[in-house]
């Protein structure tokens, strides 16, 4: 662990990168899914979800183009060269605050889900703290350790969840609902897409993570990331279909956490644990801690780039501070409704703004300041 940080040789494999990115965006919108899209777009919701996927694909493409400008440099090191220090500082700060907000949102969200359905008498702070502590420990060992951990835990849980979704196919009662409505109203679909975008928020961590990929793994990392997006999108569509065809659009719009309700009605008879779906929901703790740990990791990475001296101690210090802030803010937010509002009003617009603005700005600046970019690139090729 210490060697990885001291020598700082990027060693992440393509699959690890893709898993980390994927784990960085699924968790937030998972529990509300597909309420927002259905509320706004009714049975046209699949179009909203697909639109979200397409937008994400486009933004990922943009971000990768930005990353390829100087693959060895994180944005925090590249932006001062392009924009000058003050703007770069603001950008960095924005990213850090945003990571922190996402982390807080996901912690609050999941602890309310757990506190509501699973651990009604356990204080929320304890649920929060346990979750954050685990995420902190995951991020503690640096990039490679985190990558490996997420790879080892995330992929099995994702596979299990997929199998579970496929098992819920038996609940489908009305196949007619599987088809999206033929009457597509553009505006509701757009609104639905915007509100549902929480599902895809968070993949901007690729900006920070990209330089950590082993150079020979970069093309593979990009492919796997797109593949991950395709898988996620497919899974979300399957989930949507199952939920809508068993609950119907009207009930789905009423449920607070439709997907949790969906999983809870899934039971396996003749097994030690018959509420198997609920067990899977608890297993999603892994998705949440992964999300949280990559957020904390990003925070640590961005902050150490600003702080003088780049060694494990300052990274860990930032992690600790970040984790503390997340726990405290998590306790401060009183209920799930507030998080709902915060997410709709601030997180989604601010996140989208960041995702669209930053790569566009960087790419624009890069075309304007070709010589600088060229210099950085030659530096990178001379000292890989």
């Amino acid at each position, binding site marked *: 662990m210490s060697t990885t940080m001291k020598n700082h040789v990027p060693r992440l494999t393509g699959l690890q990168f893709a898993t980390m990115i994927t784990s960085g965006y699924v968790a937030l919108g998972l529990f509300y899914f597909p309420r927002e899209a259905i509320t706004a777009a009714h049975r046209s919701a699949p179009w909203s979800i697909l639109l979200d996927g397409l937008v994400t694909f486009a933004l990922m493409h943009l971000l990768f183009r930005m990353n390829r400008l100087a693959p060895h440099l994180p944005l925090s090191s590249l932006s001062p060269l392009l924009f000058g220090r003050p703007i770069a500082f603001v950008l960095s700060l924005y990213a850090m605050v945003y990571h922190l907000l996402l982390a807080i949102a996901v912690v609050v969200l999941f602890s309310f889900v757990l506190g509501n359905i699973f651990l009604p008498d356990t204080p929320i702070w304890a649920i929060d703290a346990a979750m954050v502590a685990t995420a902190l420990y995951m991020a503690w060992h640096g990039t490679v350790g985190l990558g490996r951990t997420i790879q*080892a835990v995330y992929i099995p849980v994702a596979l299990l969840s997929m199998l579970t979704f496929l098992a819920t196919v038996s609940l489908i009662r009305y196949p007619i609902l599987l088809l999206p409505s033929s009457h597509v109203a553009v505006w509701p679909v757009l609104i639905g897409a915007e509100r549902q975008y929480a599902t895809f928020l968070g993949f901007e961590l690729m900006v920070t993570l990209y330089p950590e990929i082993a150079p020979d793994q970069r093309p593979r990392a990009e492919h796997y990331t797109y593949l991950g997006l395709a898988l996620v999108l497919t899974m979300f569509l399957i989930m949507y279909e199952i939920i809508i065809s068993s609950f119907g659009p009207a009930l789905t719009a009423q449920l607070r956490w439709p997907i949790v309700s969906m999983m809870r009605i899934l039971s396996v008879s003749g097994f030690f644990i018959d509420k198997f779906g609920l*067990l899977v929901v608890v297993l999603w703790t892994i998705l949440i*801690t992964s999300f949280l740990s990559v957020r904390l990791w990003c925070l640590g990475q961005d902050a150490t780039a600003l702080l003088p001296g780049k060694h494990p101690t300052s990274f860990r210090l930032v992690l600790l501070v970040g984790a503390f802030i997340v726990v405290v803010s998590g306790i401060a937010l009183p209920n799930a409704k507030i998080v709902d509002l915060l997410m709709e009003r601030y997180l989604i617009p601010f996140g989208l703004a960041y995702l669209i603005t930053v790569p566009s700005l960087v790419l624009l600046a890069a075309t304007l300041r070709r010589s600088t970019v060229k210099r950085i690139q030659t530096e990178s090729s001379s000292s890989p």
Partner: protein
Amino acid sequence: MGWFDIFRRRSDRKDPPSSTQTVLDHKAPTSRNEAIDHAVETVNSATTAQETLKIILDLHLNVLRDLISETQTFQKRLEAFTQDLETRLSLNTFSGQVDAAYDRLKNTIGQSPDIILRRFYIGRKQQIPALLVCEDGLSDNQMIDQDTIYLLQRFENVQSLKENPAIAHQIVHDSVVSIGHATVETQWSKLLIDVMGGNTLVFIDGCLEVLVLDTVKYPARAIEQPTTERAVKGPQESFNEVILTQMNLIRRRIKGPALSFEPLVMGELSNTSIIVAHVQGVANPAIVLAVKERLASLTLANVEYGNELSSVLSDNPSSLFPQVRFSERADIIARDLALGKVAILVDNTPYAMTVPSTFMDFYQTTDDYTGSFWEGSLQRLIRFIGLFIGLLMPPLYVALISVDPELLPTRLVITIEASRLGIPFPPIFEVIIMWTIIEILREAAIRLPKGLSTTLGTVGAIVVGTAVVKAAIVSDLMIVIITLTALGLFTSPVYSMATPWRVLFWFVIIASYFFGTYGIILAVVGIIAHLASLENFNVPYFSPFGPLNLRDLKDSMVRFPYSAFKKRPAYLATVNPVQRTEPQRTPMPHPPMVSMQRERLDDDV
């Protein structure tokens, strides 16, 4: 440390009169006579003092006698040293004078009864004085008596020795002694260690070189069946304590010149032989180099157990998980070497170590490879299911019974509720009580003599099985769970791998107590995060799962058929990854049949 320093230390220990020490300190290197004069003076004064004291007080007579004999010994030793010093200008080199060597040895290591000093003459007619030194019990008497002394004493051509004293050792080596392995040495510091290791020294008068005859033969345990890693099929040889046997067992399995044994000596007191073994052209040289560097960087007074080295061989020595695999099975070590690992053999430790080891290595056994891949895979799966059950059953019990009963089917909840009727303790205390009993039984069964441990097992089974339940301390379901746990945790083929789980078990139990299944999941994620963060020699510990590696996954939870193992494990980054090429299968032509066979096979009626 030079010879002179050792000498000084020795004189410290022997507690000679302080005056002698000062004499030695200041005068020894300068003048011989002066030193002897001083010694004689000291002896004389001591004798006078003895006589005086004898008159005054009888009580200290024995003490004084000791003192005097010590001083006399010391004087002789000093004489021998000075003689060496005079001829070769070094205290550490043999002077070529057998008498001086005898004096020196007699008064140093010769004091202890297991060192044999034997003076004799070479040749029947003309005679040259010689001295033979050996360690009683560590060297082969027959080799010394018949192959050395007997032949030397009957040597005819002594004249040649007398004429060429400088190459006398060569003549004796070439044409007299009939011992396979003989070397030559002049340094006392090395000679002494050679003797202690069971070699025989032959000092020839006038010859500056000392013959070191390899007569090492000491009582050693036979090559027995492995007791800690038993296998149903497969070889039944385990290492014994002798490093040479260990090397032999490996060499027999890898006969090529590529197998390299690099000797090291560690331990200032113990001078323990250590062998770093690897297969050249397979093992990654960086790892081999790192192993040697790390071992060289360690300074120890005494190497008693191989485990003392494991701290430098692991990157995270404080981790619960073992990162160095110990095995007493020669076949496992040879297999690891062939895969590209580095093995470390330590004298007197019947377990060889291999690095770098991954988590998965601790779940691989001989039996996985001696049977069909179905067999191997089944065993592996069972082992992991055992681990899963062992680690998670009691925490799940606590979680499902106390925190999340809604996950259980109603009928099961009611059954469990009934079985717990009248039990005053919460589930976690049931687990604690039962697990403590199991651990005590386990510890006792290991330490007790074999005959008693069977009795203990029976007693334990009765106590645990019936009495505890009858006393309504724990529920009967708990007995089932804890038995499965105790068995499950020991399905790990390597004993050292059971320990981390036995500790982490408590961690998971406590997590499940507070947070139920949520806690268990967090705890397991924490454990996996720890496993994934471990690295040894830059090899990820959680290898085929941590950095997901499809090639290595073939030999993890299940074992693929041999034809799938075309390459060596990726995590070892071997020099030559290919280890197997499968032939192209061509259908076998039908053999021509003789008429008899045709009749017998004619079964189409």
